[in-house]
């Protein structure tokens, strides 16, 4: 186990810079999730950690050692690839023991470690099978087993669950988290699924177009997104954004599209008339007589909750209610956002106000 320091790391492919100075401190034993939309450079950063890509500038250290020029095989890192990269000509057991075999350890020791890893991952009955004879979830576990057997300084996962069906994904999510609690190995986990990020991470790093937008615990990111991108990315369904102006006439308020009045707890200083974006999460809407008028477009009950798509001041918003309402498309309701849970962003920069 080791801490990992990523300091002002940049990466260019030819003249095309994909990472523009990324700094991420990772504590020993932490489970860090890199999350962001497709193409933002998550895999690239992970591969640089593993040593599979050169570092254009900046430094990466593992423990106390700067590893910029250290070969992948000397970094003592195990990686679970998105396509698992299992060796097709080796059995599950051979796959898992391969790294130990290369290090020339005795076959007794290899067997012992492989057996133990197989037990942890419930792979014991499959040790003699070939990867072709496994299901997707089993392959995923073998890939993890290969990493566990190594007992490395750092685990790297690159979207390991993206090939699995929804149900298995949820199950494996829990398994990986459990495994981490048990082994306490520093882990960097890449995903573009914010729910995976929220549920698994000690620390989430939200990336976008080659920069870090924000990092923090899942709840910090949910409660206090630093900018509109993070606000929209974290949480499902996404936060509603309404453009308008801040109004301070004795009491702070927000004038939304077509003059809709929305409540604000307190306005930023000297901000009367300032153009801004009003952000409210679907789950923070309530039905109240003093709410803004909304016309229902679509109602989607999921059983545990009901998603309501409605128009507020001509703009579409989503609201989620846990209690059951009898809504029909075309109905007029009054939606009110809890002012203490509302977010305000600068319209031009997207920064939190």
């Amino acid at each position: 186990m080791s801490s990992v320091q990523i300091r002002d790391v940049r990466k260019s492919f030819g003249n095309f810079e994909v990472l523009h100075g990324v700094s991420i401190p990772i504590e020993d034993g932490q489970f860090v999730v890199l999350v962001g939309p497709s193409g933002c450079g998550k895999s690239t950063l992970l591969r640089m950690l593993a040593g599979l890509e050169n570092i254009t500038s900046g430094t990466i250290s593992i423990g106390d050692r700067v590893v910029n020029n250290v070969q992948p095989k000397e970094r003592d890192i195990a990686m679970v690839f998105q396509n698992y990269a299992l060796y097709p000509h080796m059995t599950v057991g051979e796959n898992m023991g391969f790294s130990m075999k290369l290090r020339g350890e005795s076959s007794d020791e290899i067997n012992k470690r492989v057996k133990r890893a197989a037990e942890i991952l419930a792979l014991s009955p499959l040790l003699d099978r070939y990867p072709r004879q496994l299901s997707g979830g089993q392959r995923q576990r073998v890939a993890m087993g290969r990493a566990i057997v190594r007992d490395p300084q750092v685990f790297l996962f690159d979207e390991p669950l993206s090939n699995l069906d929804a149900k298995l994904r949820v199950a494996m999510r829990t398994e990986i988290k459990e495994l981490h609690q048990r082994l306490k190995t520093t882990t960097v986990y890449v995903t573009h699924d914010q729910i995976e990020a929220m549920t698994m991470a000690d620390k989430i790093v939200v990336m976008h177009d080659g920069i870090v937008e924000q990092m923090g615990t899942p709840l910090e990111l949910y409660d206090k997104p630093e900018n509109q991108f993070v606000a929209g990315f974290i949480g499902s369904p996404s936060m509603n954004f309404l453009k308008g102006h801040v109004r301070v006439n004795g009491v702070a308020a927000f004038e939304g599209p077509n003059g809709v009045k929305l409540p604000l707890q307190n306005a930023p200083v000297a901000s009367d008339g300032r153009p801004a974006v009003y952000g409210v999460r679907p789950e923070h809407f309530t039905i109240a007589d003093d709410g803004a008028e909304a016309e229902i477009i679509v109602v989607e009950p999921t059983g545990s909750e009901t998603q309501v798509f409605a128009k507020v001041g001509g703009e579409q918003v989503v609201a989620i209610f846990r209690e059951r309402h009898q809504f029909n498309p075309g109905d007029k309701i009054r939606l009110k956002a809890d002012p203490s849970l509302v977010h305000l962003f600068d319209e031009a920069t997207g920064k939190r106000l």
Partner: protein
Amino acid sequence: MAVMAEPVVVPARRSSLWSRAFESRNFLGAMFMVPAIAILILFLAYPLALGLWLGMTDTKIGGVGRFIGFGNFVSLAKDSVFWLSVFNTIFYTVAASIVKFAIGLYLALLLNERLPFKSMVRAIVLLPFVVPTVLSAIAFWWIYDSQFSIISWVLLKAGLITRYIDFLGDPWNARWSVVAANIWRGVPFVAITLLAGLQTISPSLYEAANLDGATNLQRFRHITLPMLSPIIAVVMTFSVLMTFTDFQLIYTITRGGPINATHLMATLSFQRAITGGNLGEGAAISNAMIPFLVAAILLSFFGLQRSRWQQGGRD
């Protein structure tokens, strides 16, 4: 009704036999196979059967032969030139195939790396394969010429030898010389096919092995070689068959000389049958190649049976 029925009924009655035949799956199936079967019989089965039968007669050019059973084989068994040609063929095949495999694999690995002017280098590698065999054989014939050999000239100028090498006059020199020509001609096929095989190996396997701590050599030994083995089996079977039955190179460069030192079974067969006029004996020599070829095919058939890791299951 009657007006409409008429044109339907009349042609139906006239062609009832044909139309019924053409609606039968079996008849149609047989019809579709006729051209393929005819071609196979005419150009493969018939010559093979004729060759087998010829090998059991004492047919000479211009004469009608008698059936003499295994007479030709009995006399060949006592014929030292025949046994020399068997030895030559095996030596030629084994030596050329091993070196072709080694050089071909090396080139394939090289071409699979990031390389400047990659596509141009690949095109150049294919050149020996594109040149007509006889043309390249003639080029080799010049290269090996006892007075004009460029190799001898270069070595002499470099001070490495004192007199011209007699490439084609000495039995072992001649054998190695034709082997070298065969290698030059056969390497591109091996290299390009193995390269195609290398490119099917997922790069992430190498990355995984790299993280697992494998050195270059270990990656080759534990990833490349096993993943490539099915293609190696196909290529080498093909290469062995083509080398074993080679005729053009030898016939153009040495005609089997000096004193039969480079005669292969194919060239000896031709010499006895066509040049010497003993069609029966020539055919018998050709037929003697069959057991070797069948053995090679069987070997690869069992080698090619998909190994366990390739069978069953999904991707």
